[in-house]
């Protein structure tokens, strides 16, 4: 049946649903639901890592294979540096830009290398907003508690405290750089309530928060004349005889040549893993989200944390086909958009945490209450027209211009028609273990942003990532810059690779793939 006929049920049941309230799950029910339906609990998708710093820990097969993968470099590679710098930042998203700007501001010589263009990243796509406790009735402590609850109490307390306490000064920094956050009539910052938060705390720039922040940060990186190496992907790190990080080898994607960079410290800000399509899920992530930073640091001996847990965002588009996996912002649910199954019923409190909402959508679909599209995909409805019904015509268009435009391009008016959604692979909750200066257990190797782990526990609260990027981008940048005087440039060797390969051999060799992946293989083999 065509999708328009199936939609009617949403329109017919709207009025009846409007007054209905649905309680959040009790902790026990929530655990039961998650264990049964959340993809993190599909045992068959997991296996132990065979060697390295996380030997024996389980993670998804896709990632384990890459972590045990071999480097593309052989021992005889020419390591004469093409560039020498104090700080090498790898990755041009939010964390990388923040790190580069702060390191540069503190007087260090900085090179920023990135795989695609500066800013082509997950960061530009963040629509929902950034959590910072600025409202009078809110506090950093409440922010801490909300995040802990969202993260199943597994968050690193030290990292988390640092993040929530530095949040407000980050907002100030961004405003001084010209970021246009939404305001209240009295000039104060407007805050919205996000899923899993007890207080309104989301700072937004319309539904373009990440884009607005990134436009400004990119512009600032260029204005500060920070040296950029675009279309240069890191393929291996460099270490000295004592295992400290001393630089990286990049591959210039335009001419396939290696570029060797000697650096007193390296900040990896390479982002997430969505493009590994874990368990076959579509993803909301950018083209370069292939977990490169995890592989690079793992081979250097850096320990990973919480790499068995991923965030499946509840609302990835299922229809139209062209938008598969693309994010339908959580803001819609924050403003009252309801989730509706094929019978026209609600089935979860839409503002529960992401793992709970995703699990319940999967439950509806697996138990036969999903809606199937012509191409065979299943999903549930997100009642977007409800926003106009509740808050007056024009609400969707005014508050979600980016989303309106995205669907309009395919002839769908989301203020009139509901959208079909299903969880999409969105975020890597864990990553490389860091301390409060964003440093790993490998000396002079820093990791910031989505590639790092510990802060978010087992489930990141919405809006906390943008803050994470800014806070730990800054801390890594400042700490790395502060070493400029005390650290002398170490030797450039691939000793860590020798160690890694020896260990691999002991455990039945590497997995047979080359990592990092750099870009997903979407090009069809023709002929």
């Amino acid at each position, binding site marked *: 049946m065509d999708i328009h006929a199936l939609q009617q049920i949403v329109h017919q049941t709207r009025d009846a649903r409007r007054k209905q309230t649905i309680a959040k799950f009790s902790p026990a029910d929530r655990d039961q639901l998650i264990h049964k339906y959340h993809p993190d609990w599909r045992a068959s998708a997991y296996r132990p890592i065979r060697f390295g710093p996380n030997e024996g820990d389980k993670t998804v097969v896709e990632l384990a294979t890459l972590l045990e993968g071999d480097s593309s470099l052989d021992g005889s590679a020419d390591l004469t540096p093409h560039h020498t710098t104090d700080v090498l930042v790898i990755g041009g998203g939010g964390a990388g830009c923040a790190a580069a700007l702060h390191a540069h501001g503190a007087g260090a010589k900085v090179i920023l290398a990135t795989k695609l263009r500066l800013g082509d990243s997950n960061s530009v796509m963040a629509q929902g907003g950034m959590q910072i406790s600025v409202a009078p009735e809110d506090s950093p402590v409440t922010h801490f508690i909300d995040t802990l609850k969202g993260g199943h109490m597994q968050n690193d307390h030290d990292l988390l405290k640092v993040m929530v306490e530095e949040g407000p000064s980050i907002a100030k920094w961004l405003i001084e*750089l010209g970021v246009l956050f939404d305001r209240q009539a009295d000039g104060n910052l407007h805050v919205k309530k996000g899923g899993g938060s*007890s207080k309104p705390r989301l700072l937004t720039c319309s539904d373009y928060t990440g884009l607005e922040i990134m436009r400004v940060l990119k512009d600032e990186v260029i204005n500060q004349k920070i040296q950029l190496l675009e279309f240069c992907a890191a393929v291996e790190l460099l270490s000295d005889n004592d295992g400290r990080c001393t630089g990286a080898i990049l591959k210039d994607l335009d001419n396939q040549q290696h570029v060797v960079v000697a650096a007193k410290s390296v900040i990896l800000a390479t982002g997430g893993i969505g493009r590994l399509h874990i368990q076959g899920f579509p993803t909301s992530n950018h*083209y370069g989200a292939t977990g490169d930073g995890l592989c690079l640091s793992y081979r250097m001996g850096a320990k990973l944390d919480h790499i068995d847990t991923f965030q499946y965002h509840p609302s990835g588009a299922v229809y139209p086909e062209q938008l598969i996996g693309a994010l339908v912002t959580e803001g819609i649910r924050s403003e009252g958009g309801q989730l509706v199954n094929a019978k026209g019923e609600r089935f979860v409190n839409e503002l529960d945490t992401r793992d709970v909402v995703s699990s319940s959508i999967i439950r509806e679909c697996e138990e036969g209450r999903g809606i199937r599209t012509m191409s065979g995909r299943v999903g549930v409805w997100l009642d977007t027209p409800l926003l106009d019904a509740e808050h007056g015509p024009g609400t969707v268009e005014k508050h979600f*211009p980016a989303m309106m435009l995205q669907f309009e391009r395919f002839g769908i008016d989301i203020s009139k028609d509901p959208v079909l959604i299903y969880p999409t692979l969105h975020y890597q909750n864990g990553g490389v273990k860091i301390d409060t200066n964003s440093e790993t257990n490998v000396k002079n190797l820093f990791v910031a942003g989505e590639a790092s782990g510990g802060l978010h526990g087992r489930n990141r609260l919405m809006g906390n990532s943008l803050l994470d990027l800014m806070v730990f981008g800054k801390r890594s940048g400042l700490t790395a810059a502060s070493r400029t005087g005390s650290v002398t440039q170490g030797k450039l060797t691939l000793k860590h690779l020798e160690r890694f390969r020896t260990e691999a051999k002991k455990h039945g060799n590497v997995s047979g793939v080359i990592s990092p992946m750099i870009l997903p293989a979407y090009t069809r083999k023709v002929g």
Partner: protein
Amino acid sequence: MAQESNENVIDQPEVLKPRMVTIDIAGKKYEVPEGITVIKAMWYAGQEVVRGVGCLGGFCGACATYYRTKDDPKVRTCLACQTAVQDGMSFTMMPPFPARKALYDIQKLQDPKQDLFNLYPEAPLCRNCNACTEACPQKIDVREGVWKAVFGDFQSVSEMFMDCVMCGMCTPVCIADIAPNLVALYVSRAQGAHFTEKPAGLDQRIKEITDGRFNDEWKKILAMNEKELADHCATVK
């Protein structure tokens, strides 16, 4: 449709065999499934795309593309990750365009509205051809924005260009060598940094944190064992 009826609970579809269409990529013909995005069509055709793909979500502007539909002489612009192919379509990606970006220290500007004319002296030379507006895949009234910038209405510019993905498609078409998106970026940043009220509540919160207003609460919380902390969390709704 009745609510009890089971037919919409799971609608068993015939999974359609994709209809193939003929398209033209940079002058060569290919058969691809109808309705896939322009970027996917390039992958389907066997092309490696590195420059020209970024976020795949319509936000980064890396995939700026020129296209034309069957029998229509009008060349249009689109974001390749957000546009479906149709039969008879021809397209080619826009190469990087060497527009000049002015360098400035946004915080140190003395008179941002006047400085615009030093940083972008070409801005007031707009000849009103409207090509920029027609080129914008985000449907921004770019020409209007350039004029508003020149007349000092920075607030309107910053609102109009919130949708700008910096794809740069408005620049190669400009007969006055203006890069409207870069002008707007400067104007928006100046608006944020210089002409927007400072949020008093934010400064207040920063001061509370440096003054240690939350220290007692922190001490209490950080001293809790796992069980106490979990119980405490359960009381915060």
